[in-house]
């Protein structure tokens, strides 16, 4: 019994010494990799280590040690380098807000959506008298100020557009009904006096409930990649 216990102690000591040596070797590799200005090959990494050390095994262990961390040890072209963990790449980006003005076409389209919603692209084009490019509607969807409402019950089942809460908030409106009517627009000098008989500016409403002539959107409609900002804004 005594012998076995003795042996255990000796083995324990040797194990401990080995573990300490190994730890020191790992420290050396860590420091080299950290300070390096380029990925390092195993020969370079082995240079300061005692001869006969299995540098590849050490690196593999270091790689495992770092695997769950915010920084990983990766192999690039046969060399080793420390890199930010892939799932944390977002940390290394910074959003810079760039102020951009909407194009004239976009502003007109937005105004038409606001006053005439729910409105289809064909109707917008009819009111503007020119073709509306897809890009214009995309930009507006990106602003988060307009959204897809539903589909018109009509041939082709075109998508209907409406404004969002973000629209109200950006333009400082309490409710869509606060958009000025024809008389107010005239009063503000935005319309000239000479308008054809029967000319009207609709009383806008952004009631989210679908109209009688609207169908709900289908699941696929929202997967266009156009709508996320709208969704977020809501």
């Amino acid at each position: 019994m005594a012998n076995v216990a003795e042996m255990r102690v000796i083995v324990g000591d040797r194990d401990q010494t080995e573990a300490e040596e190994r730890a020191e070797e790992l420290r050396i590799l860590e420091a080299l990799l950290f300070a390096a200005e380029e990925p390092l090959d195993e020969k370079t990494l082995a240079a300061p280590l005692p001869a006969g050390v299995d540098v590849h095994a050490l690196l593999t262990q270091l790689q495992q040690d770092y695997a769950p961390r915010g920084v990983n040890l990766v192999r690039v072209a046969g060399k080793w380098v420390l890199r930010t963990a892939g799932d944390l790449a977002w940390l290394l980006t910074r959003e810079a807000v760039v102020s951009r003005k909407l194009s004239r076409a976009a502003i007109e389209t937005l105004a038409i959506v606001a006053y005439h919603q729910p409105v289809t692209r064909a109707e917008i084009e009819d009111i503007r008298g020119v073709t509306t490019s897809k890009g214009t509607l995309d930009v507006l969807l990106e602003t988060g100020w307009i959204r897809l409402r539903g589909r018109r019950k009509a041939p082709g089942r075109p998508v209907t557009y409406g404004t969002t809460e973000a629209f109200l908030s950006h333009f400082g409106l309490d409710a869509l009904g606060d958009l000025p009517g024809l008389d107010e627009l005239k009063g503000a000098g935005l319309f000239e006096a000479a308008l054809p008989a029967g000319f009207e500016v609709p009383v806008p409403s952004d009631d989210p409930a679908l109209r009688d002539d609207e169908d709900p959107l289908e699941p696929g409609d929202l997967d266009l990649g156009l709508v996320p900002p709208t969704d977020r804004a809501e």
Partner: protein
Amino acid sequence: MSVEEVNFEAELADRATGEPALVVDVEGFEGPLDLLLTLARQQKVDLAKISILALADQYLAFVEEARKLRLELAADYLVMAAWLAYLKSRLLLPDPPAPEGPSAEDMANALAQRLRRLETIRQVAEQLLNRPQLGREVFQRGLPEPIAEIKRPQWTATLYDLLSAYASRRQTQSRTIVRMPKRSVWSLAEAREAVERLIGCSFDWSPLDQYLIEYLVEPSQRPTVLASSFAAALELVREGRLELHQHAAFAPLYVRARAQQSESGAAPQSGNG
């Protein structure tokens, strides 16, 4: 410039014998205070207990030696020498009954304090320099990963932009609708429909002009009606439903329905354009 070559061993040896060595090497010193400090160190006592009188003597001896050797001493050294000579005389003579300014004692203490201060600053400078320095003993990340900037547009528009754009577009459009001019272009589809309808099943050669005469009432319409109906006729020929005939360039065009139409018109590809 030195009387005795300074070297470390020599200095050690001097210290060992306890005889203060006088090394005249002005270039090796950072000014008179540094020289004084070096001389003071050779007294081998705590700077607080230093004999200023002895120090003054050593300094003056140094300057004397340098002069003998015709060394050119900077003004700083000479000013210090003059001051030390004065201090020495004050220290040796009893204080006047009503001393003006600091006493000789105070002056000596102030000098000792200056020397201690210089010595201390040198010691801490050394400690500072012995700290691990960045890029010398410790290193930062060799491959920093830059922060990428993602530009996110912040769209701007004012309510005024919105309303004025809306009003001006609606106004423009309202005008265009009211003053819609008469259609001035005959579309290809219209022309085709007309030609098909007019020619019907006439298998006799007739001039194209004749069929179109009713559309030619307004002279301004003439070019577009002619162009469109000619193009429509060519298309119908290609589809094998019409035949065209012309004697010469600019001669009247003759047209007639093609006989084998009965094959349910299913030979649109067979026409020879």
